[in-house]
């Protein structure tokens, strides 16, 4: 494992166990509902759909009966480095409006919609395609129940700005506010988890502070089965995946023939 840049106090991160993930899509639905991701009048153009948590399906490419399928849920990776050793994310370095920043105290990459000018550089810079552009204003049809689930703590996005997963940052603020009411300054592990973590029926997602050795994520991230997407770009993502299957681990990066080293 790499040394881990312990720059800030907290480094919130996620571990997703791909062996547990069934690809059901509950995380994606819970995420969209929690974060006021709007629907569109015409939903047919899926290339412009916004999904902060996207699920990719991968197969080992072998014919029946050796076929195996796995799913990659992909939130924002909240990268800690830009790939050149600087303590900032690839998207943050290119933002001309300072609309996106890596918060050194939480490790969360913020996105301020009122500051974003919609140039989409960050979208191009993101190796994980975790950023989405709003081609239309937020739209929540009345009388269909969609307006009833809106989260008041998450502001809806306007046309012409980029949005992405925020690790449900409003939940962190909510947990902090509650802690203050109870005369605490620090929050417990279970007080702040993302909507996808909470919703996952297989409990494949674990969320917590990677800097805190008591949190499950910091232990899981050090597992020999842990790996990250496109790890060799050196962006130091804070989303880890677990898989015991070598073919899954191999698909997480672009390896040359004979370059990949299997676990066993």
């Amino acid at each position: 494992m790499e040394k881990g840049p312990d720059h800030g106090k907290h480094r919130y991160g996620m571990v997703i166990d791909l062996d547990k993930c069934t690809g059901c899509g509950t995380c994606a639905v819970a995420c969209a509902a929690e974060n006021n991701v709007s629907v569109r009048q015409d939903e047919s153009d899926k290339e412009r759909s916004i999904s902060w948590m996207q699920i990719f399906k991968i197969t080992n490419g072998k014919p029946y009966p050796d076929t195996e399928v796995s799913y990659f849920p992909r939130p924002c990776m909240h990268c800690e480095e830009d790939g050149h050793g600087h303590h900032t994310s690839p998207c943050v370095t290119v933002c001309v409006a300072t609309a996106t920043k890596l918060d050194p105290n939480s490790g969360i990459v913020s996105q301020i919609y009122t500051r974003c000018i919609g140039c989409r550089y960050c979208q191009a810079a993101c190796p994980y395609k975790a950023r989405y552009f709003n081609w239309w204003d937020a739209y929540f049809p009345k009388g269909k129940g969609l307006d009833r689930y809106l989260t008041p703590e998450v502001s809806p996005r306007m046309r012409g700005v980029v949005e992405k997963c925020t690790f449900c940052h409003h939940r962190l603020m909510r947990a902090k506010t509650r802690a203050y009411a109870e005369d605490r300054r620090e929050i417990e592990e279970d007080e702040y988890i993302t909507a996808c973590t909470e919703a996952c029926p297989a409990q494949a997602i674990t969320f917590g502070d990677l800097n805190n050795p008591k949190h499950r994520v910091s232990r899981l991230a050090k597992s020999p089965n842990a790996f990250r997407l496109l790890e060799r770009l050196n962006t130091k993502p804070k989303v880890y995946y677990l898989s015991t299957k070598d073919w899954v681990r191999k698909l997480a990066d672009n390896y040359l023939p004979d370059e990949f080293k299997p676990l066993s």
Partner: protein
Amino acid sequence: MENQAHSSDQSTKGGWLFFIAGFIGSLILGWVIFPMALYSSQPQPMNFNHALHMNPDKVDGIEGDTETEKCLFCHQLRDDGTFAGIPRLEKCMECHDDPESPLGSTPEEKDFLTRYVAEEKEIPWLSYYRQPDCVYFPHIAHVKMGKVDCRTCHGDHGKLEDLPAYRANRLTGYSIKIWGERISGLKFNTWDRMKMDDCAECHTKKGHEENNACFVCHK
């Protein structure tokens, strides 16, 4: 020749006069007339006498040792730490449902009883400090953890006998209090200018630079 020089001198003087008149005129236009035109002025649905309620000689029951604690008696922090803001009718009725509570002597109080209490209707107060949708402001972090008094940002609102008119920007719809009352941007009191940089300035001054991260106040 002399005549010509004399006349050009006079025209320069006249030019200055025109310039100064125009300059003053545009200053008045920009600093007085434009702000007046930009901001609407709406009266609150009914008056509320803060000074009277804060006076322990006149009103009994509003508990608290400090001014801030007294404010928090009605403008409550909920159990989960969120701020309730302007109290609902329910809160008023905690004291005023007592038949001996002195109500009904002024037209406002009569109004309160007939128009709102009798009909069980909430008073449609206009919130002076309602923040824009992109802003997250936890009162508890400032008032309880940061030990900032209400007065620091809200001024002497608690000493007012009459509620000031609610003034909203006609273009944006936001209250004048959001960015500070003084349109010139000159700052003598906290509430003169309350922009993002002013929040950051105070955070830095108090040694909480980490709270200047974007996502601390934005959502």
